[in-house]
């Protein structure tokens, strides 16, 4: 099976109640004065084995929503998304970790939720502790970890799953320089073995190291799709770049 990702006319819609809180479509049907907003609208693209693609755009443009849809965390309301390959995702600085659990317990839980048997996950835990470089604090609650430590642990868990498709959202920005180099090296290895990297964030120099192609998202739609530098130039020229964007090396 060849690794591939394809989106066709993808749309994700959010409904809000009077207090501007998100409600489910089922509840929206029976509530009055509900407003809606398309987080993604008519998004189409395709990725082939070995691709690395960066999602750029201002905050609220739909980058995280698109990554969550590719991860299967969100379901499209219109259109379709086809993902062929084993997916691992790191979609927030929380890195999918539960604060009350230790690093070891989180690694075990995420391993099982990721498809390993409990026995396999137990065997994997020591390796994850070593890869993350957190052995000394592996039995401490994650609530005592810094964002960088969480990202290290989260990445080590996703890496252990030997993903064919790796989805990364802003997590990279929490990492220290040493571990960034490690992530870049591992991401390159994923691509080299025919995998796909999709990464989003505002640290464009980091994204440039991971991806040769970029998609510019604005208000939930694709504004540009192509070579990373060209898309970044279009983004900068549009005047929509966020104050949080980091472009320099």
């Amino acid at each position: 099976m060849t690794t591939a990702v394809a989106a066709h006319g993808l749309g994700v819609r959010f409904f809000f109640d009077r207090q501007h809180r998100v409600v489910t479509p089922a509840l929206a049907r029976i509530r009055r004065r509900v407003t809606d907003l398309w987080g993604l609208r008519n998004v189409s693209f395709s990725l082939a084995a070995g691709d690395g693609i960066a999602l750029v755009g201002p905050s609220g443009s739909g980058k995280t929503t698109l990554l969550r849809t590719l991860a299967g965390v969100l379901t499209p309301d219109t259109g379709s998304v086809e993902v062929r390959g084993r997916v691992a995702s790191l979609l927030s600085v929380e890195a999918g970790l539960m604060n009350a659990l230790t690093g070891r317990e989180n690694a075990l839980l995420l391993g099982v939720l990721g498809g390993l048997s409990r026995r396999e996950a137990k065997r994997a835990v020591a390796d994850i502790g070593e890869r993350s470089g957190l052995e000394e604090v592996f039995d401490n609650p994650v609530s005592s970890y810094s964002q960088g430590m969480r990202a290290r642990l989260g990445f080590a868990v996703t890496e252990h799953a030997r993903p064919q498709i790796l989805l990364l959202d802003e997590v990279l920005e929490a990492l220290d320089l040493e571990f960034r180099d490690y992530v870049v090296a591992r991401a390159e290895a994923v691509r080299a073995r025919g995998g796909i990297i999709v990464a989003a964030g505002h640290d464009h120099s980091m994204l440039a190291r991971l991806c040769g192609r970029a998609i510019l998202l604005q208000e939930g739609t694709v504004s540009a799709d192509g070579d990373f530098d060209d898309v970044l130039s279009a983004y900068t020229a549009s005047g929509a770049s966020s104050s949080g964007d980091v472009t320099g090396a």
Partner: protein
Amino acid sequence: MLVSLTLSDLRARYGRGPWQLLKWLSDPFAVVGIYLLLVTVVLDRGGLAPGLSIACAVVPFQLVTMAIINGLGALDLRGSIILNMRFDRTLIPISSAMTETVAFAASFLLIGLMMTAYQVAPTTAALWLPVVMGVNFLFAVAFAYLASLIGLWFRDLRPFFLSFVRALFFLAPGLVPLSLIGGRANELVKVNPLTGLFEAYRSTLLYGHRPAAWQLLYPAAIAVAMVVALVPVYRREQRQFAKVIG
């Protein structure tokens, strides 16, 4: 996956170490103590082994209420995972009920203590206990699904829902057994499925005879009806969890 979700839930909600047991036991002991004082001293309506009779209602009710409390916050507790990866979220309410079942099992120490204190020896009717506990668990699972949906749909109403469920305890023979409730009220409280559940525990542990069929079948039927109605809704709504939580 269910075991992993439950173990993580246990640690997240109750911590680790020897204090865990104390946390599980403190609530049912305190509740039974207060109700026992209320019934025997204030109301002067004890009946047969009042402490054991109350424990036969408080302990199973504790499982239901704790599964509801857990279910109401279950999606928030696991929000970071729900937002990060795809997995079968249908198991979350079941793991909520299983987490609280561990605490429930620990609180059986209270029933044992009460049986010793009132010198009530177990009879062969106690063999029905696994069946009664099975119905109790099914009831807790059904309410955990309902609680998860209410926690998702009506976040502001969580405390009211919990108050409503707590009121059901007093609309059932929780403080005094069914035999001490007279007149039309005796028939009316049977509409509450908790009545059958409480009386089934009393039958097996206090009165020493097997529970009447209605005591098990009625709450089981209500629980099955709830599960059949709610699980498809939950499965449909789980696609929206990340939108609401995120």
